[in-house]
């Protein structure tokens, strides 16, 4: 589904990714772990198409399409979802309005009919129910005044609504208490654990992996994947730290 080859990327002239290669197949969950500054969030942004991140070498294909040629919104329409480490506040725009416009924009790009207000509300409420989010939060401005946990839960509701093929989840577990962690973990499994979907989990800690079991774990250090393994690698990292493993 996703194939990254020898990816080099820089921001403001500083190289962050230095020859990263990774292949994710449908039905798989991959975890990317690594120390601060290794390039984890940069990887998420480069895959999501954030302006300012310049790819200097390498390639990324998604279902055979050159992902790097697409703008951020085209990647979304193609089925790529980026869950943010720090979800952004948009004052004055309600969650419902934001998501409905976004979803219908994606549908328009795919030549699908837009959802009516009623159809969308039904969909949104269904996802809110599944993630234990109050309907009231759907009406509130996007992420404004939300707690850290509420923001992450909102990301999962958004993911449920757009129902992507491939999700990149950047530190989705940060800021969550143990109950919220379970809800979010269940959400990821429910929405994304399917034979035709895949997930790239970017995380510092192994604890989310207790809920969302990865098929592969990769250690990212200094812009490259330095080690790959099964889920046991995450446990080993937890006990031994990155220093020994990345070296």
């Amino acid at each position, binding site marked *: 589904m996703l194939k990254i080859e020898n990816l080099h990327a820089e921001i403001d002239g500083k190289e962050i990714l230095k020859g990263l290669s990774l292949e994710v197949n449908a039905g798989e969950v991959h975890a990317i772990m690594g120390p601060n500054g290794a390039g984890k969030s940069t990887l998420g942004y480069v895959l999501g198409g*954030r*302006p300012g991140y310049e790819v200097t070498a390498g390639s990324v294909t998604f279902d055979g399409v050159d992902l790097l040629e697409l703008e951020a919104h085209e990647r979304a*329409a193609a089925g790529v979802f980026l869950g943010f480490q720090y979800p952004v506040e948009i004052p*004055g725009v309600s969650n419902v309005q*934001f998501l409905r416009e976004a979803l219908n924009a994606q549908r328009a790009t795919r030549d699908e009919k837009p959802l009516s207000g009623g159809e969308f509300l039904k969909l949104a409420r269904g996802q809110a129910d599944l993630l234990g989010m109050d309907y009231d939060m759907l009406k509130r401005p996007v992420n404004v005044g939300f707690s850290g946990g509420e923001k992450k839960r909102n990301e999962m509701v*958004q993911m449920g609504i757009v129902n992507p093929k491939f999700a990149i989840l950047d530190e989705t577990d940060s800021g969550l208490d143990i109950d919220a962690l379970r809800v979010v973990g269940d959400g990821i499994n429910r929405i994304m654990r399917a034979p035709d979907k895949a997930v790239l989990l970017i995380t510092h800690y192994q604890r989310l992996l207790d809920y969302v079991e990865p098929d592969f774990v990769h250690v990212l250090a200094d812009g490259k994947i330095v080690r790959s393994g099964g889920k046991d690698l995450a446990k080993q990292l937890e006990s031994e730290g990155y220093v020994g493993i990345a070296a």
Partner: protein
Amino acid sequence: MATRNAEAYAAANKTYEWGFSSDIEQEFAPKGLSEDTVRFISAKKGEPQWMLDWRLKAFALWQTMEAPDWSKLNVPPIDYQDAYYYAEPKAKPKLGSLDEVDPEILRVYEKLGIPIGEQKMLAGVVEDPLNEDGTPKRRVAVDAVFDSVSVATTFRKELEAAGVIFRSISEAIKEYPDLVRKWLGKVVPQRDNYFATLNSAVFSDGTFVYIPEGVRCPMELSTYFRINAENTGQFERTLIVADKGSYVSYLEGCTAPMRDENQLHAAVVELVVLDDAEIKYSTVQNWYPGDENGVGGIYNFVTKRALCQGKNSKVSWTQVETGSAITWKYPSCVLLGDGSVGEFYSVAVTNNRQQADTGTKMIHLGKNTRSTIVSKGISAGRSDNTYRGLVRVAPTAEGVRNFTQCDSLLLGDQCGAHTVPYIEVRNPSAQIEHEATTSKISEDQLFYAMSRGLDQEAAVALIVNGFAREVLQQLPMEFAVEAQKLLGISLEGSVG
């Protein structure tokens, strides 16, 4: 960053979406401005002597005055002799059906987005006033000022049954001379300012509304303004009088065709509100702002003022300003009656080389008078956007309250936002609050919205509409929808 700015400027070259021109024969006043021009206009309209005298007095005053230069605007010199001051569409027989309306005019209405129903109303086509489920249809009475002359006034009968007078000001001068004479120039005196004085001399047409005592106007009143003649200055004059305990909501929307020559627009709007009455005045202004270099746009030098003469009277100004090359406009409230209330809600968008110097004046003279000011300025391209506002509390005005909020949003790094609040308080019991913020549309917000599927323009429109929401929600429903679209259109390709 530099590359992206360059792309943004290229994208901002987008031509004016509603720039179009229609071809209707004009009867012009001779080019230039003299006493003869004033007499021509007055004669053309068949005005009584007192009106001509009033105009001539204003013209004599104007000749002694100089254009103001205290604003932050850079106004090129205007040659007042190189313009026409009067033009009207060729006279048509009375409008009986849509077929009788000049198809050119209908085409213009269509482009302006006037719903077909309202187009029919213009021609007086009577439809079932109820929806299929028996509820009354939402109605808007339209007095269309096409160029300078009112083409048609609709819903006149129903308004008349309620005692509401809704006329072009030319008609009102002839039909209700006492009412017009009583109030014309009482809120904005002839000598008020250079442009108001000019307007007093040469005003072409406009609207007169009178709501009698205790009447709640049965529909929203709407006027579509449109400048349609080459080199024709537009000098609208609006006078609205709300008698005791009455209420009216008035909508004013503008758009203009593309032009190479600069066009001067100097309107005057006067509102008079008596005891316990309320006027809600909403404007969506989308006149041609000029090309990417600012060439050819409208100069919009407008004087709008309300006199809250009665006790507990109220005026609410709401404006969405996206057009014009230069905007100079301060819809104000003189809060004379005890307990009267003034409100000003404004969104002003500037792009490319547009300049806007806009705001309000709240003059507190009566006791326990209150005012609220919410101003949202959005600057893009190489434009300059200034909020200029005055809150004045007279020594006699006990218990005054004012709340002012001025927010500025910048798109790109070559535009300017300025906030110039003047606060003059001469009574120690006043409570005045002023809040101001300036922010840039953040890359985080843009990327977040885009990563959810919105393209850049849709993302900008969404964020900007969120920023302006407090103001937009003050607009009547049909205007709010139009205004939201307009904000997006005005800012297309402006992110750098």
